[in-house]
């Protein structure tokens, strides 16, 4: 393989194209005059498969730059922060979920450490977000979730 970037991009296209093609074959294809729900996606997936294949072949023909190392720590932290929000927002409520999101995301930085000042800043940001989104814009997100409600009966 001489062009890894072409190879992997082609591989992504190929996989999505092939999967899309076979899934789309479950929908009726129709005819050119009366296109069924399967017509458009089948053609698109077929073309994407073709593009993927050409890219794969090209990866062995032309010269290309190597793919840089994946930065796994930032990737895991940032994606983790998003998932944590999804998991926490209903049972724990918006306030806690937001704080957790900020904390988990912050671990992406190599200079991350738990210090009082950034923690205070994060709490302030959460307070502002709660005020703007939950109180002012009425986003239906509980401020305090059912799991925490026994601890804070006044909310």
């Amino acid at each position, binding site marked *: 393989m001489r062009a890894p*970037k*072409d190879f*992997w*991009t082609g591989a*992504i*296209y190929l996989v*999505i*194209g092939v999967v*899309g093609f076979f899934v*789309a074959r479950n*929908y*009726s294809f129709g*005819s050119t*005059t*009366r*296109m*069924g*729900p399967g017509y458009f*996606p089948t053609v*698109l*997936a077929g073309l*994407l498969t073709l*593009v*993927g294949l050409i*890219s794969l072949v090209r990866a062995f023909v*032309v*010269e290309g*730059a190597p*793919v*840089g190392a*994946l*930065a796994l720590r*930032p*990737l895991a932290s*940032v*994606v983790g*922060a*998003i*998932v944590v*929000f*999804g*998991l926490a*927002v209903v049972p724990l409520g918006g306030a806690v979920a*937001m704080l957790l*999101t*900020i904390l988990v*995301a*912050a671990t992406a*930085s*190599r*200079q*991350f450490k738990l210090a009082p000042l*950034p923690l205070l*800043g*994060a709490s302030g*940001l959460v307070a502002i*977000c709660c005020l703007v*989104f939950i109180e002012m*814009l009425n*986003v239906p997100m509980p401020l305090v979730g059912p799991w925490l409600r026994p601890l804070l009966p006044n909310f």
Partner: protein
Amino acid sequence: MDVIANLGLGLQVALEPTNLLYCLLGVLLGTAIGVLPGLGPVPTIAMLLPLTYGLAPDSALIMLAGIFYGAQYGGSTTAILVNLPGESSSVVTALDGYRMARAGHAGRALATAAISSFVAGTIATVVIAIAAPLLAGAALAFGPADYFSLMVLGLIASVVLASGSLLHAIGMILLGLILGVVGTDINSGIARFTFEVPQLADGIDFVVIAMGLFGIGEIVANLEDETSRTAIMPKVKNLFPTRDDLRRIIGPTLRGTAMGSVLGILPGGGAVLSSFSAYALEKRVSKNSAQFGKGAIEGVAAPEAANNAGAQTSFIPMLTLGIPSNPVMALMIGALMIQGIQPGPSVMVQQPTLFWGLIASMWCGNLMLIILNLPLVGLWVKMISVPYRYLFPAIVLFSVIGVFTLSNSTFHVYLLAGFGILGYIFKKLDAEPAPLLLALILGPMMEEELRRAMMLSKGDAMVFVSRPISATMLAVALVLLALMVAPALRKKRESAFHEDS
């Protein structure tokens, strides 16, 4: 004079105190987020979009337009002060703007950017007011086949702007079109590519994809190398350009405006193409061309005028034909649809207050930018100098909240995580996702027009070449493709030549 009457109507809407307030809020927030390094208009708009859901359609659009201009202006500020252009349209501004800032003329560069943007914005507003009704009139003659070909042209043109290979850009288009298929088919009611997930029945929201691919992927990429992110801030003083400066920027500003206004209307055009072309033109015609790249004030004025004019006139095809010419306009169309408005030639006739109000508010937004941002520049400088490690958690948080508010479901939040990973992988592979976003918005419309065109022609594909409008669009698309392939061939021959020697 229809134009004046229409603009008057628009100004009435835009100058309503509440709308003025939303415009102001949009400009402020847009600049505040847009000024953050590495955040271009697409993630900025996607992030702030939820704030507009609860508003009336005209207020929502006016606020969004404010956000858009703010984000653009914020990007230029960052480009000039720290040479970190948030998006490709400010890359050119950074060339001379940053040099000026280094030489102690940051204030003059910022003021030049603001003034030339305002002049361009004012002229472009008039251009829109004149051109939009003409185009909307012409659009009435468009049949399904013509719309389909126009969209093909738009997609092909978007490839021109994508960095990297033509093949991969076409792959991105196809991928975007396929993602656009996800959801319930309107003709047959069959759920396609939903994999039995009920939340996918309405399709994947474009905001999730835009935020994941452009926002989250970008954040992770920015965090790869933290050391390079420490910016040394130049001092900003002397915000007023001298009389000599003003004299020097008049020509470049007007030329940039003209270039931007024309290129913005073209499919695939908009801010990026405009700023690059204007800089190239100015470098050729300027008496001061030797100074370009070394801190020429003309090199700031021309691209800034062009990108603002282009950004503005790219609203024309969006509003009159319902066809986005770049990812930002794709987001705007999405925002319109959320408000229950199907963009197209009928918007101008059926909702004149919305249409003209938006156009007038563009001008108001530009005016606010110049009044607000010069005094507030100290605040923006402070925001830029906050270390990235404190900023990005907040950006992640805003993105997550924004996605959650789309339909108040955690499902979209997990999708965001997935598209974030994909966005980072694309970044590593140098695969530019801008064509994907455009195709995602155009996909459902294209399928619909294709079906209609083929039904009307009884399956005869010749309809695309026999109708003059459609044939012209396809011909232009072919020429564009040929132009793109040609230099690539030349480059390949060159590299082969080098290997031989």
